[in-house]
């Protein structure tokens, strides 16, 4: 993904984080992970996970935490895809 797109994802993730950080019930991080899982396409999820793997510059703490949890959950599923199919490339 280009810088441009990653910047956009960072911005979107932070926006989501600002909503969930205010929610105590249920816990904000878990809700945010769930939100990303439900509404973000695998392509976007992988890009943000990769960004966090590289330090997650620009992301708010709740967003980093939520994406980390997402990475733990998504890892297995994503690796099953052939290149050019599903997540990474399409």
């Amino acid at each position, binding site marked *: 993904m280009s810088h441009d797109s990653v910047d*956009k994802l960072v911005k979107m993730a932070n926006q989501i984080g600002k909503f969930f950080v205010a929610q105590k019930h249920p816990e904000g991080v878990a809700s945010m992970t769930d939100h990303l899982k439900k509404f973000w*396409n695998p392509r976007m999820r992988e890009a943000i996970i990769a960004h966090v793997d590289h330090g997650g510059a620009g992301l708010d703490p709740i967003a980093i935490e939520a994406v980390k949890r997402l990475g733990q959950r998504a890892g297995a599923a994503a690796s099953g895809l052939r290149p050019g*199919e599903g997540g990474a490339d399409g």
Partner: protein
Amino acid sequence: MTLIKETDYGTPESKSEKLVTLTIDGKSVTVPEGTSIMRAAMEIGTEIPKLCAADSIKSFGSCRLCVIEVEGRNGTPASCTTPVAPGISVKTQTPRLAAIRRGVMELYISDHPLDCLTCAANGDCELQDMAGAVGLRDVRYGYDGANHVFARNNGEVNFDWKPKDESNPYFSYDPSKCIVCNRCVRACEEVQGTFALTISGRGFDSRVSPGMDEAFMESECVSCGACVQACPTATLIEKSVIAIGQPEHSSVTTCAYCGVGCTFKAEMRGEEVVRMVPWKDGKANHGHSCIKGRFAYGYAQHGDRILNPMIRESIDQPWRVVSWDEAIGFAADRLKAAQEKYGKNSVGVITSSRCTNEESFLVQKLARQGFRNNNTDTCARVCHSPTGYGLAQAFGTSAGTQDFDSVDDADVILVMGANPTDAHPVFGSRMKKRLREGAKLIVIDPRRIDLVRSPHIEADYHLPLRPGANVAMVTALAHVIVTENLVNLDFVKSRCDWDEYQEWAEFVSLPKNSPEAMQETLGVPAADVRAAARLYATGGNAAIYYGLGVTEHAQGSTTVMGIANLAMATGNLGRRGVGVNPLRGQNNVQGSCDMGSFPHELPGYRHISNDAARQAFEKDWGVALDPEPGLRIPNMFDAAIEGAFKGLYVQGEDILQSDPDTRHVSRALANMDIVIVQDLFLVETANYAHVFLPGATFLEKDGTFTNAERRIQRVTKVMSPKNGYADWEVTQLLANKLGLNWNYTDASQIMDEIARLTPSFAGVSFKRLEEVGSLQWPVNADSPDGMPIMHINGFARGKGKFVVTEYVPTDEKVGPRFPLLLTTGRILSQYNVGAQTRRTENSQWHPEDMLEIHPHDAEDRGVRDGDWVRVASRAGETTLRAKITDRVAPGVVYTTFHHPTTQANVVTTDNSDWATNCPEYKVTAVQVSTTNGPTDWQHQYRELTAQSRRIASTIDAAE
């Protein structure tokens, strides 16, 4: 098929529960107290002659044709103004009554031109009918004396005569035929609520006149057609009837414009539409209409319509007209090639909220079953996706809670970010009626919409908040409700999650959320916010109506949840007169969402990761479905710019004009290998298309639309599709070329499949709809007749969910470079991107988009009314003409986006709602300055458009 004629009962229905029994012409009849004798007679099939009465308006008692005798009472009272009484005995025909009636008719006819044979209303004129009904055989008075019929009397100018008013493009007014029955005046007041007509003069001199003796087009008239329908003569009549003649058959169909979903009788002569007349039994509109549905259907015959498929290798080439087979083959090959080269997720579809449920269903099915991905989205993404998300979170259903009729029981109406009189006109009229009856009104909108002050209506509170401050507003209102102990604790305790409520109450009570602390952010005096909150919480049944001014923001979803919080905290849910009501923009926004057009959910709002739901579809469709959510529209564009998204099939939606940040969208489209546009016209998006598949209008196909009240209604084919196929058939051609082997032969079979696979539609079928007229989902075993009001005994999700709504200022902040906030909206006569309405006479009302600017801001910039101004944001700039008005607050400018040359979306940015990516159309920081004319971009764009619309073939594209 015959011409549908509804019964006119003469006077409105009485709502009383007390019943009264009386005798009419020896027959006993029992009716609610307050019913007129005229109506009671009609209930048993006795039609008392009448001229000035109609059941859509209150009785007036002026013509005296409807006289009756009541045993034991003196005189001959008018049956339209005399209520029933227990035990009375009424006679509707006696020699005395017959003589009175003939006398009345004789007077009318003596001042009426006797050109019945050549009159456009011949065959549909109540004056004619009554002359027949009362047995009028001769007229003793001639035209020698004073009359309104002739321009000259014996060579002298007749000052009583007035010329025809032909100023309105859709109907004409011929004063010489007016019988001064006042029906039009009352229709304009009571049904439409515009008060454009008056009777000027008295006695013999009296005549109907729009405004102060103005022409219709110069008056306040909004061309809704209510007066034309009410007129018993040819005085007010559709020009199309004058041109074509009286219709011979009709079918009921649904308006294809806004989310009100008015039903109409399409009155036909052969395959030609004579006129569209609002259907009295329509549950959404009850016989009323607006200018769009009533008159603006001429685009269907417009010369710009493309009727043959076209293709081109690349977008710099001219279009080539080809056969359907070649076009579909070309499209399918390119889609397959893209998937082979770039992966299965490199292509997707966009459905339209203008298309039918059946069409949307098939398009998402094409993506899921054919492309094997979930890259399907709908233009509802850019308008009401936050409604879907927010209401599902709060209540468990992605839909409004009430039917429209519920407004009749509302005591307080809160309108937020919606402009019903322009964008949902027929519901706007209903709302105004209730307001004139005394309901209180709170308007939360940056702009002084018409509703704030209109004839006989004045908002109790107008809170003109700064664009972008919606969440701060709902939270401040909640602060007042909680801290002043106005919460309905019984409701909250029994119906909502108590822990979540407490957290929410604690949050909104924080001092930082008080109207005083928020005053700066809101730009509204704290005292007004407090008073409005008190009124909402304590004024009786309180209903919230909201629109795109709520959803199209960076915090759109948060505001929707904040609105739900307010309704739950005050117990304003689960009965008539209350609720949370999203006013949907396009006709089938609700339906396109219901039909699984979103990339994360299957029809009926079941998440794609839900195994049970997915398996049901897999079994039916015989393929494995991808359990991961697909790309949303903005994500598709981003992926396209990255080079990972290469093919798009767009049905009936002009994404290039309607989506924000036009340059970004055009870059994305230009990067694709195959863009297929299915539409009526070469819309802006078609500039970037390789395949153009001509679409059909709503008059040319069968299907259903679902309006803002979840009401499913039939769309009926009244003429053969000029392009050859209904839109669902075109999708089927493409699907079959991709090897899917679909075999639908009728739209009803698609609905059967929807019903089979979608629990909330289980009981819906075309047959059922034809029997009952309409159904409000859910229609299932628990509610076989549908559900007008939801959440009566509990929320769909169980306990109502309170959500903390922290205000986060948008990134679109004003600063020295961009000191003004631009917000966008719509106008009555035009619809969305205007592709249809601009191709009708409606453009006479709104020929161009204007920039509304406050006098102070205009003066600072040396802008005069009507000047060309440049509007620049960080995304781009455009030019349009300025209109100076104090309807907008200082610091705020406003425009509509109905015209492609305006390019308002060149200016809007790619900011979007955090939860759904619904674009933030309603807030853009801009600068405004004077200029001489269009920008370079506008010039270039015009050239590009001309270039890309070239058609290289001798076969003519349209008639």
